[in-house]
């Protein structure tokens, strides 16, 4: 899965997600990626979040929506992602998920559980190349 967030100079805020799904899934299965609030969520003036991981679990907790809700209450992007992931209680054995978020001021953060490593790719004006933000799980 890839989840993307973009903010434009006109105040536009958008998320996009796409995936080929889990390998060897039951035909017809849909994961979190296509579900608004699960794979991604954006609210101008607050921020946006996108997720990746075990879509069958992630979609039950609407973690992107939860992260944006946390930011609306004043949490930083990293704290918002941590709080959202913490709502997966109890985490199923082997569960792995990650969130990346941006607040209205352009601050970036993320959180993850179960992955060996997770990174967020970031690009801003003046940067010749994207930078990679490591997120410890």
């Amino acid at each position, binding site marked *: 899965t890839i989840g993307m967030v973009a903010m434009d100079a006109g105040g536009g805020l958008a998320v996009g997600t796409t995936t080929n799904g889990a390998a060897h899934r039951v035909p017809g299965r849909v994961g979190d990626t296509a579900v608004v609030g699960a794979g991604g969520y954006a609210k101008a003036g607050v921020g946006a979040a996108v997720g990746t991981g075990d879509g069958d679990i992630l979609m039950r907790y609407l973690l992107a929506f939860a992260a944006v809700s946390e930011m609306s209450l004043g949490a930083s992007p990293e704290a918002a992602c941590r709080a959202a992931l913490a709502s997966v209680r109890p985490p199923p054995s*082997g569960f792995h998920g990650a969130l990346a978020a*941006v607040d209205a001021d352009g601050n970036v953060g993320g959180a993850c559980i179960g992955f060996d490593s997770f990174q967020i790719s970031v690009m801003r004006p003046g940067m010749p190349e994207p930078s990679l933000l490591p997120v410890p799980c």
Partner: protein
Amino acid sequence: MHQQPASQPVLVINTWPFVNATRAAFAALSRTGSALDAVEAGCLQAEADQSLESVSYGHHPDEAGNVTFDAMLMNGVTMEVGAVAAMPDILEAVSVARAVMERTGHTMLVGDRAADFAVEMGFKRRSLNTDRSAADWRQWRSGNCQPNFRRNVQPPADHSCGPYRPASSRDSNPGNRRLGHD
């Protein structure tokens, strides 16, 4: 119109170190100034990039050997959403999601009917399966269809391929989730 001060931050981020998608999104943002255009362009790049096995066509076939796409776009200003799910045969899934947003009053279209909608909107039908996905699927079949997402079925899905039918008893163990991911 949603106007913001000139100091509005401008940026693109994405999950994972998929920097070609980041570059594509940022290039679109620089070209059009639209956040929606940016995320569409970044996701399109990823859908076509064969090195991104968890995103692109030609990877992650389902039990029947078919590759399908799930995709979603959301405009955080207007709160409009477009999505497609379990959609076969259309490479530009995220652009079809945008068409759902902009050319219907709906939020999500699924399966073969989503592909039919895409064709109506001018997208070309083309299999998402490749020799690679076919080889992956054959290897999975030859390995007794492991790993497997079925449970409480006969024959037992932890060591047998289907076709499956409901088992007479059900356990409450949801199983280990480390079967792979989206």
